[in-house]
């Protein structure tokens, strides 16, 4: 087995032996279920009202009215939930002094960082797969367009990847899991707010740069069903850069 594979398997095992993965997935799915159910309830109320007042059913676009806001809300829930998945990854290795085992084994730091990222990503992706149940249930009662749903899922996966890799940097910086998770929230909220800051600065190159640095615009495009290589490059760069930063953080700690 490759060294990365060994790390991935160990991390997956740890996720599912401890209650973390179950609690995180449970909360995530509960919130997403509510965020899908409540808009549907609102729309059905409105439709009934219109039926009573105008005598005909409005032509509702569920993609537009239910799924798009649901995906946007999913991003907010991820902001709260994903750092919980990553807070342990490196902080605990340092706390338990098992980092020393990893660093004195024939593993490169890249093997360690990539292995941990892949494991966390697999857990996140399986959580996400379960949310598809809601979409499938909705498809049973309504006509949905599947292409924008697919791009939205791609967007959620990529956004999750960015959140996970930023969380990994935070986890590498400390051996305290609470500090790690708070740091991730902070970092993620700051890059989230870049979008707003960019809008306030306006149509200058700096304002555009700020907006570009925030994942929100790129994520919105994918949720809308737009696939632009610019957005894909953004996500790939953000993930690779964060993993590289994690590598540098661990490398610098080796010298101390």
């Amino acid at each position, binding site marked *: 087995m490759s060294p990365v594979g*060994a790390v991935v398997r160990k991390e997956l095992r740890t996720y599912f032996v401890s209650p973390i993965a179950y609690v995180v997935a449970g909360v995530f799915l509960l919130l997403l279920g509510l965020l899908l159910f409540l808009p549907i309830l609102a729309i059905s109320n409105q439709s009934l009202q219109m039926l009573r007042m105008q005598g005909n059913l409005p032509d509702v676009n569920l993609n537009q009215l239910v799924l798009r806001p649901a995906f946007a809300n999913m991003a907010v829930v991820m902001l709260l939930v994903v750092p919980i998945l990553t807070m342990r990854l490196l902080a605990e290795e340092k706390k338990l002094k098992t980092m020393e085992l990893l*660093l*004195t084994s024939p593993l490169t730091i890249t093997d360690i960082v990539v292995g941990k990222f892949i494991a966390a990503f697999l857990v996140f992706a399986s959580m996400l797969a379960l949310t598809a149940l809601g979409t499938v249930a909705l498809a049973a009662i309504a006509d949905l367009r599947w292409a924008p749903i697919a791009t939205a899922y791609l967007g959620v996966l990529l956004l999750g990847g960015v959140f996970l890799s930023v969380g990994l940097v935070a986890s590498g910086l400390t051996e305290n899991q609470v500090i790690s998770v708070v740091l991730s929230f902070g970092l993620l909220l700051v890059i989230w707010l870049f979008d707003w800051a960019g809008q306030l600065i306006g149509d200058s190159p700096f304002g555009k740069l700020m907006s570009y640095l925030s994942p929100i615009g790129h994520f919105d495009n994918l949720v809308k069903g737009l696939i632009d290589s610019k957005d894909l490059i953004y996500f790939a760069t953000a993930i690779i850069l964060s993993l590289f930063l994690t590598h540098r953080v661990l490398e610098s700690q080796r010298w101390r």
Partner: protein
Amino acid sequence: MIHVEHLTKRYGPKTAIDDVTFSVDKGQVLAFLGPNGAGKTTTMRILTGSLPATSGIARVAGFDCFDQPMEVKRVIGYLPESPPLYTEMTVAEYLVFVARIKGVPAEQIPSALDQVMQRLTLGEVRGRLIANLSRGFKQRVGLAQALVHNPAVLILDEPTTGLDPKQIIEIRELIRELAGSHTIILSTHILPEATAVADRVVIIHEGRIVAEDSQERLSARLRRSEKVGLTLKAPPSDIVEQLSSIPGVLSVHSDDANRFLIEVELGRDLRDDLARFVVERQWGLLELKLVTITLEDVFLRLTQEEPLPGPAAPGSQQDSEATAEEVHR
């Protein structure tokens, strides 16, 4: 097998180890002896390829610890001071993970596991969570971790800390057993441990090697004469003169009325002569023994700036005339 030359490591302005040079041959056991904070762990971590040194050369099995860390990591097994255990894993799961990251081929992992568990008698705790094990078992799992890929070089940082006396003896026996087929460096601040397991002892203090030799020669170099301790039931009043007349006796000191310390020429064992002398005169021989300088004496001498106040052990007071210069390299 292990070769270290002029190795220096600084943490900022603090020098952890300073111009350390030593080497270990294949199959030898070397003990690093020194007080806490002397630089033992730093030296060992450099040898594992995980900590870069500030300057100097460190080689393990012909591989440079800085330029070829992967090769070095493949041939060493390392037990840090606190065993690196994933407490939420079972012993078997943990050892499988370690075997995988150490690069043991998948098909050999079950046999490697059986071997190391048998060697460290871990069979009964195989399926237990590491968190629930006793300190002694945890330490043994830590050792198993260092051994699971059957490395040529073992680096053990204080392998017996926190163990009960029976377990300490077991671990020492294991280390002796592994010597020969494995090259071993271990660190300790417990002196009898170094004596018990090591072929050679390196005494390190404030980052410098203050002495390096076999345990016997280390103590031999500190003494210029042999000493024999004698306890008598009825010594005559002129005993000092009488004993001094025996050929080979250099001087006689008396600790108290019944106990005497006889200094004899180096290399001459006068115990037989002394015994006959005393028994013929019916002085009531209670005890007769060769006083050897203990590693404790050597250690304290070398690591303390000031001379020792008072006798620490029989013979040590007299020996403190020997200066530290004698063992300085």
